[in-house]
């Protein structure tokens, strides 16, 4: 049973305006409280001992000296946590296996990456906790390791999991492999499609792992009481999912854990997973004191997040007039230490923008000695798009067809059959391409060593379990409780605005909060750009339930039939054309007498939102490449995207701009650098260089609004699509500038210089 609320076009008073967001003043004054800002009386500080090896068997752990240090109140290791059987659960776009969750939060038989937790201590001060870590003796048997995805797929590669047999291969393989899972999507007759092609382009791409790079490190505070209850404050994208996972791995009742989400200092998918939370609860249980755990930036890089590094092979064939006849891709994704990368989503996204008859996509999910990957904004899609949109660009160029025109000739539209399952509903890809082509940026002049690139992106967007509750206060204002974490984009503001629109009151008369896990029914994590879509739907359902009660009260007060009372412009009024006449009552008037007419008035909704509308974006970028240094400078950037409906346009623009710049970082600078020892060499913002203000220009935005028919305000979601296109768009722009195609990410100065060198006449292609 799922919920959809149909889109109805209507005149809007609040939706589409730009009011002050409810969390803004707290954020400019330093009042907003993030994970590390919480404190409890008597709290202790917890720290984690992490593996210094990429791959090693743990022979023994001796914590006696640490436990004997004055000020140390408890130590936990693998002995303090139950082993978990294989059992899968959804976390954001990715799926986790509890057997792996329990091993990722605390190593058991082996450490599988540099930074893998081995023990945790809690002490009266941070300096004592750090000293205690130094006193823990771990006896390791160091094993050979593997980082690169292609190397890890070889039969003789060092094995992370001796009991891992590739899923998705029949018959079942007779020997274990680092390939955790193989997936395949097939539609039509690929060979016949390639035979019909006049032009076939085949290219191979490689990308490095990159981190979500949220500025707030993971932080939590846990308090476990003697009657077996736990309270947890944490910076999370999904407090209900964190509660469920902590309950599972700590073998506690769900009702005994209350999770209060703190303000979150960025997530981008990286705060979908538990790390320190179960350790903090376990340490609190053992020490009988509240326990605070805050990661350092080094820990964030070494043990949380990142996205996959990948190897991508793309082959596309098309006719002389630019119609794609066949498309094939192989996506090999690093999963990190445990299976479960975003390769399924990447595989489904790879060609979904185009209306194709013949497609084959193979995806491999490969375990390597790196931290377990987490979702990162449209997980996997940017990597697949880097390959596919680069090849599309090359084909358009070789056929002398404008790249947007090439895409239009193949563009997916309503009714297009995807190769992974559903037919696409009403989508706005064509409208988005046309808006991009019409933008002045697209035909602006370019100088020497400058080039322009375009690329497009597709993301599903999702709905899922969501709840919301609102109370009509005695003065007619609304208190709104949300179960959706506002991961920064302003979903709190957007949801309050939709509620205000429903009631016919000003946006600032609705005060939203993100409620804790004990106040509302289950909410899935904020992922898949679902916050404003699903949360908005739940809020509208809750508002409509409350409005129904308001009408009932007025029918009762005015002694008229319910059917004669309508809600319009913030008031209960006589229905148009009805025989009854009565003086209208405002929300405030009804609220002021609610106590005497049956008690306070509330509305709530617990739904499984369905009908998410896919989002499409097109990016245009101008670059200038310095042939001497290999430096690529972004000169101009335009994002065009269909969001269905922009509830708060300023924050939709913010998503476009932020996603584009994150993508620019991914394209040009960001990468995990490993030494031959499998240790990350750049676990800090000095050497892992995210874009700074002086790296980028203003990012122009064009909001396209093709309403999603399955949302009351037409919302599709907008947060993830903006990061899909930058890598490919920039690669295409570099090619346009200097005639050299970059197939390796990041397109950093050394790689650009090497590509220029390799392309010199007489130089053998590598």
């Amino acid at each position: 049973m799922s919920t959809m609320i149909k889109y109805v076009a209507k005149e809007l008073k609040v939706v589409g305006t730009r009011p002050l967001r409810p969390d803004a003043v707290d954020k400019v004054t330093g009042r907003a409280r993030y994970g590390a800002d919480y404190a409890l009386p008597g709290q202790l500080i917890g720290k984690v001992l992490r593996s210094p090896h990429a791959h090693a068997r743990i022979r023994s752990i001796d914590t006696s000296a640490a436990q004997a240090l004055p000020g140390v109140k408890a130590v936990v290791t693998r002995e303090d946590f139950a082993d978990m059987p294989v059992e899968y659960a959804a976390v954001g776009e990715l799926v986790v296996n509890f057997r792996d969750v329990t091993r990722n939060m605390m190593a058991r038989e082996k450490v599988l990456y540099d930074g893998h937790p081995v023990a945790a201590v809690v002490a009266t001060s941070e300096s004592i906790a750090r000293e205690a870590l130094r006193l823990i003796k771990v006896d390791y048997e160091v094993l050979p390791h593997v980082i690169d995805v292609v190397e890890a797929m070889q039969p003789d590669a060092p094995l992370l999991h001796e009991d891992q047999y590739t899923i998705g291969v029949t018959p079942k393989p007779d020997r274990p492999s680092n390939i955790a899972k193989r997936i395949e999507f097939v539609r039509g007759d690929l060979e016949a499609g390639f035979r019909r092609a006049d032009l076939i382009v085949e290219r191979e791409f490689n990308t490095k792992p990159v981190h979500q790079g949220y500025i707030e490190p993971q932080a939590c505070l846990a308090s476990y009481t003697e009657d077996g209850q736990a309270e947890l404050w944490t910076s999370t994208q999904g407090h209900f999912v964190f509660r469920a996972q902590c309950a599972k791995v700590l073998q506690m009742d769900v009702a005994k854990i209350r999770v209060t989400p703190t303000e979150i200092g960025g997530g981008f998918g990286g705060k979908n997973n538990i790390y320190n939370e179960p350790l903090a609860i376990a340490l609190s249980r053992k020490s009988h004191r509240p326990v605070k755990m805050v990661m350092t930036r080094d820990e964030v890089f070494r043990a949380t997040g990142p996205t996959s590094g990948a190897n991508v092979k793309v082959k596309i064939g098309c006719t002389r007039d630019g119609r794609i006849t066949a498309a094939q891709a192989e996506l090999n994704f690093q999963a990190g230490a445990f299976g479960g990368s975003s390769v399924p989503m990447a595989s489904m996204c790879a060609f979904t923008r185009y209306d194709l008859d013949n497609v084959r996509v193979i995806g491999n999910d490969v375990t390597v000695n790196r931290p377990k990957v987490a979702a990162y904004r449209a997980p996997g899609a940017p990597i697949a798009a880097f390959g596919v949109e680069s090849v599309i660009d090359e084909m358009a160029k070789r056929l002398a067809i404008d790249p947007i025109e090439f895409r239009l000739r193949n563009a997916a539209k309503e009714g297009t059959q995807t190769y992974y399952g559903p037919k696409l509903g009403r989508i706005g890809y064509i409208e988005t391409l046309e808006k991009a082509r019409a933008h002045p940026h697209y035909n602006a002049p370019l100088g020497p060593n400058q080039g322009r690139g375009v690329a497009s992106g597709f993301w599903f967007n999702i709905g899922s379990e969501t709840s919301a509750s609102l109370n009509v206060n005695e003065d007619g204002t609304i208190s709104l409780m949300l179960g959706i974490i506002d991961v920064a984009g302003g979903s709190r503001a957007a949801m309050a605005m939709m509620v205000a629109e429903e009631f016919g009151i000003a946006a600032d008369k609705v005060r939203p909060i993100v409620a804790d896990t004990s106040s509302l029914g289950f909410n899935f994590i904020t992922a898949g750009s679902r916050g404003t879509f699903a949360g908005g739907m739940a809020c509208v359902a809750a508002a409509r339930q409350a409005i129904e009660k308001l009408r009932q009260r007025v029918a009762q007060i005015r002694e008229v039939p319910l059917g004669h009372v309508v809600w319009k412009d913030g008031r209960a009024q006589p229905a148009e054309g009805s025989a009854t006449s009565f003086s209208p009552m405002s929300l405030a008037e009804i609220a002021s007498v609610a106590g005497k007419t049956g008690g306070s008035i509330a509305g709530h909704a617990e739904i499984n939102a369905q009908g998410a509308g896919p989002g499409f974006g097109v990016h245009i970028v101008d670059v200038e490449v310095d042939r001497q240094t290999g430096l690529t400078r972004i000169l101009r950037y335009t994002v065009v995207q269909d969001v269905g409906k922009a509830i708060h346009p300023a924050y939709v623009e913010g998503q476009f701009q932020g996603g584009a710049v994150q993508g620019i970082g991914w394209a040009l600078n960001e990468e995990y650098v490993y030494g031959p020892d499998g240790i990350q060499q750049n676990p800090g913002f000095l050497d892992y260089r995210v874009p700074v203000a002086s790296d980028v220009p203003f990012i122009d935005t064009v909001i396209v609004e093709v309403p999603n028919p399955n949302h009351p305000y037409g919302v599709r979601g907008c947060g993830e699509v903006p990061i899909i296109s930058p890598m490919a768009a920039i690669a295409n722009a570099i090619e346009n500038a200097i005639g050299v195609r970059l197939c390796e990410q990041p397109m950093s100065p050394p790689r650009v210089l090497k590509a220029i060198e390799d392309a010199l006449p007489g130089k053998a292609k590598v």
Partner: protein
Amino acid sequence: MGKHHVTTTVNGDAVEFLCETQQTLLDVLRDELRLTGTKEGCSTGDCGACSVTLDGRLVCSCLVLAVEAQGRSIETIEGMAAGENLHVLQRKFLEHAALQCGICTPGVLIAARSLLERNPNPSEQEVRYWLAGNLCRCTGYHKIIEAVLDAAREMRGV
């Protein structure tokens, strides 16, 4: 080892605290004085989230030892507004939607105020380079730069 006794001024108030030798000014602001508006993003001086001013000079408080605060004057985000009147920069950040998650916002605001004190009429490029020490992962900087330029205009009275 014994702790150090430090006397200093924070946002105009006389303040005393005890600290360990290795504690940073950021540690003390956040953990001892409970002024948690100043944020920790990296503790290595690379992200700017902990920006404060020390005797009027913009610093990363994670790179200043707490004992160095002795006899100095520190300004943090908590002292930026004057009573109910937000600083122009704070107001412009609201008007321009120049924040999202907000974890970088206090540091950006402190750094931007420091720029406008020195250069009341910065170019876009000067704002971008001045704020290059303050990482923001959400906004792409666009609305931040617009807000700072607009605040500068208003403060110049044009």
